[in-house]
């Protein structure tokens, strides 16, 4: 699964996710990637999110929208909201994976609860990093 989130010069944000799914999947199984609110979500009032991991758990957790809702209704920062969903809620549901997020100020989060994550971030403040987190 691949994905991206961005904040542009007008402070607009967006999210994209694309996947081949899981090897050996059957019955027309889809995961969270194409589901708005589960694996992909963007709202200028909160943040943009793209998820990767065990799609079934992300669907049941409505993970991407949950991050946004925590910001909108509970006033959490994007980092606090992402940590709550990935490191607390998804862990309790035994959901393996993570997400990337950015808010309209360009603040970004890359959080995950599994062993391997392929990530990159580039920003106008000079940040430019790619890594395979282990």
């Amino acid at each position, binding site marked *: 699964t*691949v994905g991206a989130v961005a904040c542009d010069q007008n402070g607009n944000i967006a999210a994209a996710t694309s996947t081949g799914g899981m090897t050996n999947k059957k019955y027309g199984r889809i995961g969270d990637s194409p589901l708005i609110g589960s694996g992909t979500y963007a709202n200028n009032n909160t943040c943009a999110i793209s998820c990767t991991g065990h799609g079934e758990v992300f669907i049941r957790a409505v993970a991407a929208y949950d991050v946004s809702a925590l910001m909108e209704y509970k006033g959490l920062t994007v980092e606090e909201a992402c940590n709550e969903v990935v490191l607390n809620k998804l862990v309790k549901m035994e959901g393996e994976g993570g997400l990337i997020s950015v808010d309209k100020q360009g603040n970004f989060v890359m959080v995950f609860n599994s062993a391997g994550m392929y990530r990159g971030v580039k920003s106008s403040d000079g940040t430019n990093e790619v890594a*395979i987190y282990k």
Partner: protein
Amino acid sequence: MQKLTLVIHGGAGTINKEEMSDELEQAYLKGLQEALNGGFAVLQEGGSAVNAVKAATVILEDNLLFNAGRGSVFTKKGLQEMDAAIMDGKNLEAGAVAGVRNVRNPIELATEVLINSNHVFLSGKGANDFAIKQGVKLEPDEYFFSQFRYDQWKAVRDSDNYTLDHTLHDLNELKEKKFG
């Protein structure tokens, strides 16, 4: 001045250190950097966040190493079925596709759904029909083939096991987790 930011991901799962050579690791990092550069160039040129995330995702889809577009994993039937979604935070408009085949860049098709349809989510043959109508580029099955993904599938195709991007899971474990 507004801060421009692009963040990307290329998958999830456990890294098998025996299979991850230095050369392969560098190839993954190079692929991530190319996607990052491509998407960020759109932002630097004054492009929209939607176009930036699409551009970065297209580059990752075109890279055989990542499980999306070219290099997608095999289903139980030995096919590639792909899913994608895109959402614009400015107006909450979105487009998504699921179970599409032979579409070179599923994120391009999802963007067509966002811009040029009255719907949010198209699936299966109907989504493929929409791709043809919109002139989205298609490719033969061979284009999507990768030996690595084929070998990964061959190892589990006669079982009910499946793998995440980089991890093997046993169905019995998943039953415990109440998947589905």
